[in-house]
């Protein structure tokens, strides 16, 4: 029996229910968004007692399917005021699925000052008061859990930023190597902090392997699926070798690499922060160029990055992180960027929101351009200690821009715009403006078709076809985010028909159902509409489905382009 576990943080009680029939075909984002939309009042304060924090493994999580180790976290976001789904790798998705937990829902809010830890195992959920790790950073929490309890537990934790309910706070998830992955975006760490939960541990002991309705059909579909991932050059080869940072040089060449707080589309020192340079450093220093964020990953886009002395610095060293601190903050040194990445993991802050925020802080004059050491000092001395300046920085990109009276504040619905300039890559501008999540490249990754020539070609520099491209990608993404599969399966899926087909076959064989591809696309549409409806009721309407004005006023080199899409055309996004 698939379970839904409700943890009430107001009266510290736990209720385990059978998952309602209506939720049977839902997982991951489809489930977190359904629960948030049904149960959270859209106008509630995100940090108040009426918000809920929901974790849900995907439909295929816990199975032997390749790249199925992702899960979703959902809530109303304190950063955007919208519904939020963020997803992460790590070990917990698999453990939750094997414990037959379809959703773990945190409700209410403690009235006193005490903090808690929550433990999940085969017998249910327990809540204990927590004092030892309060104020501690994430790596200290992991050490504490390992020494007090077990090294094998799944761990979901917040650092000092989450405890202080900052907008940049993420929820960190222990990975297979005992390092961290993140539910990065939207300030979900602040929601967990508002419920006074320092960490959640998951013990999979005594759980059983997933029961498949049709094991033979599952195995057959799984083999086809894995083959498509290995056959496609992006998922089978490119990401394995260079990681996502290979995009630095690509976006630079295409003139869409936002530089110095979005004032240019090219960064003169791009080579120094490129995927090629990263690969060179990693192989020279005995790091690992290829590495998975969860069990069963065949793409291996992650890596282990070491310093010149061969000591571990960071892992999961992503393009967006490197871009934000590199091109956007003008730090031309991959080693310092890696060090900052480690500090961000330790404090529990989103590396996109934090990186973009620091570029705005540099424009505000809080610190000099390119000063990575000062970023580390500000993170450790101001953000971690929650000083007044630390709280302004911890509020995120919009908070800093407003505090300093700036107009060039790259956010949509309060969330920082990631690593692709919408003036030079128009399709991603449509995604930033229209997604239910606030600026989020993953919601509809038009870069694939605008720049990478995956899934066809659509000219990035004209407005033609961009709304349709973004819409199709956003629908497909909402469906993929519900499966527990890594979003990078979209690369083979866009070019090889058997990829998504076999994924649907796996879902059918797992549950003994007969979904068609149309059903899955229908699920994606339903998810987007549920989320959109929530946002409208929260007071976030079409007038906020737009990019900041400076993109219309300032053109960007080298293509000398502005954002010039008609607002009515943008609004036609929702015609489906």
């Amino acid at each position, binding site marked *: 029996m698939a379970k839904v576990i409700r943890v009430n943080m107001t009266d510290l009680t736990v209720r385990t229910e059978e998952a309602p029939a209506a939720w049977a075909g839902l997982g991951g984002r489809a489930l977190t968004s359904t629960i948030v939309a049904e149960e959270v009042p859209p106008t509630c304060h995100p940090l108040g007692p009426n918000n809920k924090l929901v974790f849900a493994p995907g439909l295929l999580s816990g199975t032997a399917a390749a790249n199925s180790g992702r899960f979703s976290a959902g809530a109303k976001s304190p950063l955007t005021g919208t519904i939020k789904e963020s997803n992460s790798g790590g070990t917990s998705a698999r453990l939750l699925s094997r414990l037959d937990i379809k959703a773990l829902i945190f409700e209410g809010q403690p009235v006193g000052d005490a903090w808690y830890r929550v433990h999940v195992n085969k017998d249910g959920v327990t809540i204990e008061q927590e004092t030892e790790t309060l104020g501690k950073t994430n790596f200290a929490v992991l050490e504490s859990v390992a020494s007090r309890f077990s090294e094998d537990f799944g761990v979901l934790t917040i650092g000092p930023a989450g405890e202080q309910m900052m907008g940049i706070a993420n929820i960190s998830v222990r990975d297979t190597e005992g390092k961290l992955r993140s539910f990065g975006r939207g300030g979900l760490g602040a929601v967990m902090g508002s419920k006074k939960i320092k960490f959640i541990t998951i013990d999979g002991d005594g759980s059983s392997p997933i029961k498949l309705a049709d094991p033979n059909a599952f195995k057959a579909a799984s083999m086809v699926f894995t083959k498509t991932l290995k056959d496609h050059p992006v998922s089978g080869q490119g990401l394995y*070798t260079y990681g996502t940072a290979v995009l630095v040089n690509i976006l630079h*060449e295409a003139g869409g690499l936002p530089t110095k707080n979005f004032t240019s589309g090219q960064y003169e020192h791009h080579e120094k922060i490129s995927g090629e340079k990263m690969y060179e450093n990693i192989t020279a220093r005995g790091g690992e160029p290829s590495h998975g964020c969860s069990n069963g990953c065949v793409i291996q886009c992650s890596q282990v990055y070491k310093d010149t002395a061969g000591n571990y610095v960071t892992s999961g060293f992503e393009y967006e992180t490197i871009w934000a601190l590199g091109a956007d903050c003008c730090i031309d040194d991959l080693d310092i960027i890696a060090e900052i990445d480690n500090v961000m993991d330790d404090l529990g802050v989103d590396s996109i929101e934090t990186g973009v925020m620091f570029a705005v802080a540099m424009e505000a004059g809080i610190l000099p351009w390119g000063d990575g050491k000062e970023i580390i000092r500000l993170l450790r001395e101001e953000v971690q200690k929650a000083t007044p300046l630390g709280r302004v920085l911890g509020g995120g990109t919009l908070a800093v821009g407003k505090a300093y009276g700036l107009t060039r504040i790259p956010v949509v619905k309060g969330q920082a715009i990631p690593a692709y300039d919408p003036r030079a890559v128009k399709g991603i501008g449509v995604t930033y403006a229209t997604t239910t999540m606030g600026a989020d490249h993953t919601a509809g990754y038009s870069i694939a078709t605008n720049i990478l020539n995956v899934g066809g070609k659509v000219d990035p520099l004209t407005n033609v076809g961009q709304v349709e491209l973004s819409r199709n990608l956003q629908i497909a993404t909402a469906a993929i985010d519900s499966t527990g599969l890594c979003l990078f399966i979209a690369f083979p899926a866009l070019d090889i028909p058997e990829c998504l087909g076999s994924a649907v076959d796996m879902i059918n064989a797992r549950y003994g159902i007969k979904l068609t591809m149309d059903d899955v696309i229908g699920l994606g549409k339903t998810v987007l509409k549920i989320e959109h409806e929530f946002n409208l009721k929260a007071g976030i309407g079409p007038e906020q489905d737009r990019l900041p004005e400076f993109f219309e006023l300032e053109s960007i080199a*080298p293509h000398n382009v502005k954002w010039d899409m008609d607002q009515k055309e943008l609004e036609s996004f929702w015609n489906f």
Partner: protein
Amino acid sequence: MQITVKLFATFREGRFKQADRDYPIGTTVANVVDDLAIVPSEIGMIFVKGRAAEMDYVLKENDALALFPLLGGG
């Protein structure tokens, strides 16, 4: 005529990162690809001065040509 050729990712192996090279007038992207012994089916992205181009694009004096294998990220 002089063309700046920039190579990326695996295309750099055994070749170069960036080089100014002389080609006759009328040279296409395909001619350069052939000259560098790159397998055409391995090409994912072609940019000339930051704009996407096709294999039959005829290069002009001082063009910068960037060649990438099929890559992705996000």
